[in-house]
Every structure is written in C-alpha cells, then in structure tokens.
C-alpha cells in the first residue's frame, strides 16, 4: 500500500533530519573535526535522496483524483510532515554553511569554541546512515571543498521547496494531528548508551481537555 511505504520513507527522513541537526550543533565546537565534516556531507546527501524520493511518491499520490476523502486527508497530513521536515533540513543546511565558513579547520589562529563537548559524533552519523560503523575516506581539505557543494545543494533544496509550494495545493493549517498532547510520553524509548540505572515509574499523563487519564510506565535505561 502506498501509505505504508510513504510512512516508512517519512520515518527515515525524520530520523536523518534529527541526526543532521545533532551534527550541525557540534559544528564549530571542540567536537568539530575532519570526520564531522564528512559525516555532515554524507548525512546531507542521504537526506536529499530521501527527500526526492518522498516528494515524488507524495506528489504522485496527491495528484491522483480518484482517492477517497479520508485517504486524501491522510496524504495531506503526510505532506505536512514532509514539508515540516524539509523546512528544518533547509534551515540546518544553511546554518551549517554559515558556521562551516566561519570555522575552517586548518587555520591555526582560528580556534574552535570550547564547549565542553569533546567526543565524536560517529554514532549519531551511523544512526543516520543506518550502518554499524562509519568509514572515513575524505580528503583533508573537505572543510573548504565541501562548502561549494553545500551551496549548490542549498539552492537545489530551496528550489524544490518553492516548486512544492506552487504545485501541490495543500493547506497545512487544515490538517488535524493524530497525536494528542503528551503523546511523546507513550511509546517505549529505544535502548541507548546510557550508564544511569534503571528507573520504573508510574506517571499520569499531563492534563488533557477530554479528561482521559492514561497510566503507563516509562523506563529510562
């Protein structure tokens, strides 16, 4: 079914966007390195591939006039998810260009900001690329060489978003979300590299308008 495919692709795009943001936050700090720049480049490319794939799929689904009203509402909701992801991605790409230009790696008089972060971001990038381990093979001048590519990619993405807005007639404010307030507390968190002990707590969900009380267990590993 087109919908399931769409949802999987959107989940993937969402994951890559989140990881990209984490990587951009490390730019310019003491976590910054050759490897980070390469991670940024590869995550970006992956994000763009996913974006194009998502866009083609969703536009073809939305152009179809024969779909039912519920289906159309669902596709519009997916479209809003997609365009919101793209907005975040676009801003992060522009910011990474700006910060990348301000903090070249090889200039000895240009110091990185001592933010307290010193570890590598390789696990984040591995999560984005859906691989076990990252292999690094870039040239030493990647910090300056990549910026030109980045500029052209940003223009591409901006163009794509303008086209999207022009061609697809979806009113984002008309979409109703399926999740309620506090929905992020519901599902179990995935296992991460934490060393803090296990805590099991029964908690009430923050107040909602319809007064539904949900009791669930949140585990922090």
């Amino acid at each position, binding site marked *: 079914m087109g919908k399931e495919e769409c949802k999987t692709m959107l989940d993937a795009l969402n994951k890559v966007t989140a990881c990209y943001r984490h990587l951009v936050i490390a730019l310019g700090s003491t976590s910054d390195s050759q490897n980070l720049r390469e991670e940024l480049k590869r995550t970006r490319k992956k994000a763009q591939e996913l974006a194009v794939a998502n866009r083609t799929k969703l536009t073809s689904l939305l152009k179809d006039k024969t779909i039912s009203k519920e289906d159309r509402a669902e596709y519009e909701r997916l479209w809003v998810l997609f365009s919101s*992801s793209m907005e975040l991605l676009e801003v992060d790409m522009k910011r990474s260009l700006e910060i990348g230009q301000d903090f070249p790696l090889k200039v000895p008089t240009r110091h990185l900001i001592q933010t307290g972060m010193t570890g590598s971001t390789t696990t984040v990038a591995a999560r984005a690329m859906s691989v076990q381990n990252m292999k690094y093979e870039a040239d030493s001048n990647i910090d300056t060489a990549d910026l030109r590519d980045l500029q052209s990619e940003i223009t591409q993405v901006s163009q794509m978003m303008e086209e999207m807005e022009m061609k697809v007639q979806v009113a984002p404010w008309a979409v109703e979300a399926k999740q309620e307030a506090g929905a992020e507390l519901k599902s179990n968190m995935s296992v991460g590299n934490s060393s803090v002990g296990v805590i099991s707590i029964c908690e009430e969900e923050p107040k909602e308008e319809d007064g539904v009380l949900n009791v669930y267990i949140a585990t922090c590993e």
Partner: protein
Amino acid sequence: MTIRNAIRDHGQRYRPRMACLKKAEKVLLEMQDPKTGVKSQPQRLVITTIPHAISGEDIIAWLADRFQIDSQEARNLGSMLVALGYIYPLQDHKRLVIKPDASLYRFQTPYFWPTQQWPVEDTDYAIYLAKRNIRKKGILELHEQEQYNRLHKWMNHKWDFIVMQAKEQYRAAKERKKPDRVVFDCQERAYWVVHRPPPGTVSAMDYGLERRIDPNADEVTGESLHMIFTQQSIMRPRVKSSVSIGALVKYCATYNSHDPFLSKCLPSNPWLTDDVTYWTLNMPNVEIPTKMRVERWTFSFRELLSDPRGRDDFRLFLKKEFSGENLAFWEGCEDLKWGTAATMREKAEHIYKTFLARGAPRWINIDGKTMEITVKGLKHPHRYVLEAAQTHIYMLMKKDSFGRYMKSPVFKDTLKKAIAPEEHKFTDAQLEQNAKNRRPSLSPIILRQQELEQKAKMAASAPVDITQVMSKLSKQGKEVAPRPPSKN
C-alpha cells in the same frame, strides 16, 4: 553570507538589527585562545568530568585586562554576554548574570548563538518542550507547561511532526557518550532560557516587536520626489536652535522627576519588580490621584485635559462656576474627530444645535469670524469641520479657566487629598514571588464596557444641572431640554 533567509520568510518579519552580536562574537573567539584566552578548568560531576568550565572571576578579570576597564564595567560586559546567550551559567541557570566568584560558566556552541537572520522558531521550541516532557516524564515547570499547551493549540497541524521529531532527536542524542549528553542538555536548556525566558528572567534577546519593512531594501528614489522634498524644506518654518534647545532643556527639567527611567517610580516600577501597585494607583478613574499625577496637571493645560482624572476635576470646577459648556463643547469636538464616520453627520448636527445655534441651550462664546467659518463648514460636515471653533474654545479655557482652576478650592482640595505612596523594598525572595504571581490585567474589552457603563450611570444619575449631560449621550436619543444661554 551570500544566502539570505528572507526569500522564504513569508511573514516578512525583519528582526531589529543588533550590531553588538558581531562584536560579541569577536570577543568570544578571542577568549578561546589557549594562550591568551580565558583559563578553563574541568567540572567534576558525580560520575563524569567535563572540561572547559570557566569561572566568573576569570571571565571578569580577562575582560578587564583585554579592554582596560574597571571590574564593575567588566562585570556588566560579562553579564551582557551571558544575557545574549554566548556564555551560560552552570549553576543557577535561570539568572543570566556573571557572578564575580568561583561559579562556573561554559561557552555556548555556535549553532545556539543569537543571530540576526535566523528567527527563533516556535516549531523548535515545541520540539524542545516535547523532548523535555519525555525526559522529565510529564512533569514540566509551570511556565513550560503553559507554553506547551499553548503551542499544542496553535501548532496543532504540525503536532505529529513535532512528536516524531522530538522522539528521533531524543534517540539521536542518546547515541553520544555520557559527558557530551550532559553538555548538550545544558546547552539546549541555556538556549531556551535566553530565547523563551521563564518568568523572572531578563534576557537580552527579548527585544519586543519585529519590524514590518526590510531596513536593507532599496528606497524608492526619483527626480520628482527629490524636487518636492527640496521645495517643502524651503517652505518649512524655521526656529533658532537656541530657542528649540531652550525648550528641550525646559521640558527635560520639568519632566525629569516624572520619568521612570531617570528617577524613582513610586511605589515601584512594575516592569522591574512585577508589582502592579503603581498601575492600580494611577488608573484613569481612580478616586484619589497620586501627588505626582496632580503635579503633572500644573505643567500645562494639555496635561490636565489629557489625564481623565484631571479632566474630571476640571469639569467639577467648571460645574461650580457654571461654565461647563466650554469643556462639553471641546469634548464633543474630540468625539467628532475620533468617532466613527457613520455617526459624524448626526454628531455635528447635535453639537450645532446644542452649542452653536442662536438661542442654543449651551451656547458658547466664539467670535464672529470663527462662527461664520464653522456654520459654512457645517453644510458639508467632515471630521475636522469644528477645528477652528475647538481651538478658539481651547485657548479660552487655557488662558482663563485654567488659571482660576489652579487657584480654586477644588484643586487645592484634590492636591491635599492626593497620596504619595512609599517606596517598595523587595527582597530577592519577594521578587521571585512577585514574578510567580504575575497575572494578565483586565482585557481592553472589559475596560471599555466599564467605561461605557460609567458614562451611562453618570448621565442617568445627573441632576437637572445640564453641565453634567455630555454630548455623547445624543446617541442614546436623549434630547437636551432647551435652556436660556448660561452666563459665562
């Protein structure tokens, strides 16, 4: 920076320019130098050690040395850097100041620096609150919970995205090692303390309204515009600078003690202490005004008329002198100028019948020429048709009645009864309490209703003395009984 964000900024928002940001960034980069920058030390937490913590006293000493300033000014400069969000405190994270002791701070990562061209998006804030919700297992602080509910209402169409992205960002953050995770949490929290300050926090990025036009856009120029501009500047009346400067000096000297920026605001400035006594004591319809307010009435007639309480007092005085029709006429003209276009014609007619016509019940004394102009204008009434007559009456009141009012028992009585509130002296704890008790004031809709109710009450309870009846009541269809012209 070649790529501008403004292209897709559909809201056409232009944030105020902050030239200080570029300068602050330069200073910050200098502070990073391992040899000449600020000394850093490791921060020891329970399980981990995190490097690159700097103490307040080191920052202040470095700034004083770098800029050759004294330590008080270095402290102010340091606090400015913290308030902008370039450095964040590790303890007491809600107070954005530099403490001149061993309390620790850390540099913020460039992504979270304040910027001119990247607006702080509510979407990002919603994602942050959702992540915090996950982390705190549903227990958010009060102001965070309020913001969360508000954003959930207004950004409902994006809420699925916000939840998805929050979960993914939370998971991605877990991929990093423990010390880096702690640092990232602190960074993000510090960023939002600056850009969405909790109650009681003063942040330098709280700059108010955004502009509506792009200050960098090209202005429209043309030869004909230039000509018109120069012609108008030739025709403009000129005043000697000695005269205008003298007027400015006089104004400053008169209003100096009344300006809350330059002198104390009694009992306390609500914007600083979150205590609204000042506003309650100075409400438009308060019974007993404050001494400062009464003093302002003596500065000029305009001040007296523009303050509703002052105008009430003046009206009372005129009632005793049986010359209330001047003020009533002036108020009627104001009502005409500022009222709706639909009611203009009937208002103008009513004013004419009440004040200007031969044998009118509240006839006012204006000279023949003005009367001629006014009557001619009333054939085709517009908003400013009574302007000449209004100015004449205003000058009459100013030169004659105002002086007598200042010497009258009414004014002396008001002055005697006026209160001078004591200055508040709040402790830090009380200030925090005040900040927590902040509540929105009455809605303007309610205030307007109260105003109208009061006017109706005044009119209904008015004795036959006509000086109480105001021209605004013509809307309710009450006709003024014909009376012989009153003595002036």
